[in-house]
């Protein structure tokens, strides 16, 4: 983890409201592991007191590529930053996905919308090829398919409006694939997307006796473990629970660790 002042090399539309931001980050880029994130101080974001966390799409040759959707005030201000502008980063942050997958396992990646960008680096760095399931509301929410295919991964797509792939939730093609391969393959799940999707994938892993590594998306403050904003309830061994910081102990947790009962239940 370190502070690095970096410059924007490229910043362009990526389609469907997404923006691609490429940064020269010679110190942080080589350290990034799949599933980790960087905390960005958005230039000229006046009256804002927090950085914004971004997962990493690509990290190579001393460069970081971030893929984001302009959804709020912060990302809309970031969207107009120009090449040559200076950006302050803290990173890499968080634990990231485990990469020491036993050779007989088949990695099964499950992404909701923007989660595809966050899982791409994992596909790139895992020692074995696998399969990826991409879900979204509509075809424009399905990202990076060609990037995965270029790595030799099979991509299954589901959209809620049926505009691309199977109509429905990503769990549709996921369940069909699982039913077909559960006897001849040993899957290990890696997921990034909405909490409801993570919970579904986690439940299947627990029921089937497999492992599922889930990247949780929590509202974040400091990003380094100090402010205790982004806490997640984890199961303790004695049946009780404790808070873990998604920025520090997470954002990746194994399905059995997480106690799902909503964002706002009583502590």
């Amino acid at each position, binding site marked *: 983890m*370190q502070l690095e002042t970096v410059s924007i090399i490229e910043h362009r539309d990526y389609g469907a409201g997404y923006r691609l931001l490429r940064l020269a980050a010679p110190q942080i880029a080589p350290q990034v592991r799949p599933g980790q994130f960087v905390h960005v101080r958005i230039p000229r974001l006046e009256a804002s007191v927090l950085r914004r966390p971004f997962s990493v799409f690509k990290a190579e040759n001393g460069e970081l590529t971030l893929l984001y959707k302009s959804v709020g005030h912060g990302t809309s201000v970031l969207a107009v930053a120009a090449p040559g502008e200076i950006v302050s980063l803290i990173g890499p942050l968080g634990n990231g996905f485990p990469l020491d997958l036993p050779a007989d396992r088949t990695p099964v990646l499950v992404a909701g919308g923007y989660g595809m960008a966050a899982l791409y680096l994992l596909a790139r760095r895992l020692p074995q090829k696998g399969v990826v399931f991409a879900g979204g509301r509509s075809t424009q929410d399905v990202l990076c398919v060609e990037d995965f295919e270029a790595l030799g991964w099979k991509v299954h797509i589901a959209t809620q409006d049926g505009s691309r792939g199977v109509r429905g939730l990503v769990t549709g093609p996921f369940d069909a694939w699982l039913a077909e391969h559960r006897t001849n393959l040993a899957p290990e799940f890696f997921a990034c997307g909405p909490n409801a999707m993570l919970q579904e994938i986690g439940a299947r892993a627990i029921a089937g006796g497999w492992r599922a590594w889930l990247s949780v998306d929590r509202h974040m403050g400091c990003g380094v473990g100090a402010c205790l904003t982004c806490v997640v309830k984890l199961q303790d061994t004695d049946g009780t629970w404790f808070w873990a910081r998604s920025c520090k102990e997470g954002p990746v947790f194994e399905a059995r660790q997480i106690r799902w009962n909503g964002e706002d239940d009583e502590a």
Partner: protein
Amino acid sequence: MTTPDISIKLAGIPMKNPVMVASGTFGYGPEYAPLVDLAKLGALVVKGISPEPWRGNPTPRTVEVASGLINAIGLQNPGAEGFLRDYLPFLRKFDVPVIVNIWGRTIEGYAAVAARLSQAEGIAALELNVSCPNIKEGSKSFGSNADMFKRVVAATRAVTKLPLIPKLAPDVFRIGEFARIAEAEGADALAITNSVPAMAIDIETRRPKLANVTGGLSGPAIRPIAVRLVWEAAKAVKIPIIGIGGIYSAADALEFFIAGASAVAVGTANFLEPTTALTVADGLRDYLARHKLGSIHELVGTLAC
């Protein structure tokens, strides 16, 4: 001209500079140690410690607003024993005064945590958290009720020889009254101020944005409030004041010194720029040189009005 001297001695504690990091915004030290040289801080005030571990509030716990952050963390902490076991040994490796913010749900709780921490080596002072707006079970009323405040300062004073620094609440009618009580009960310094009770509402769902409904506002939005409180309190007492509230730059900090603070603490700014305290200290040195002042003491309480 020689470099101005910004070292201070506050409540008997020598500090390399008068810029500390405020409780709750810097964890317990290890969180920011990879990014900030802790030995360059004036002092490090760790997140509030209670006698026993405390889980704090449900989520969402913070919400960003214009020029501020509302938090309702609820004082989650590992308890006195957890702090002494897991964090103090780490902090002792650095040449920086460690001030521990303490709180209890009862007067006995305050005394218990103060007594326990006073037995440890490596703690420079205790900051008395009587003003965190996020504890329903009493802590708040210690800061806004003069009689309760007097009792908690007295009870803590009785069990510790460490410098005692009550942190005064912003939402009191007359801050001078609380400052005088603290001084009379043997406080060595005052920290002014804490976050300001606040709330934010999601207008679509008509629900509060924080699980705790209300929280404490910090950041630039409260700086003018804090400057006024420091000015009022400084007129009431002789003990030194640590000015806290929305400090992001040396210019921000200088307002507090001129208003009467002998030191300052950087809080919410740490989340945006972890090295803020160091850049503030550098900026103070530059200001003193520019104004031909030999030390920071020459600036304290020099408001012309």
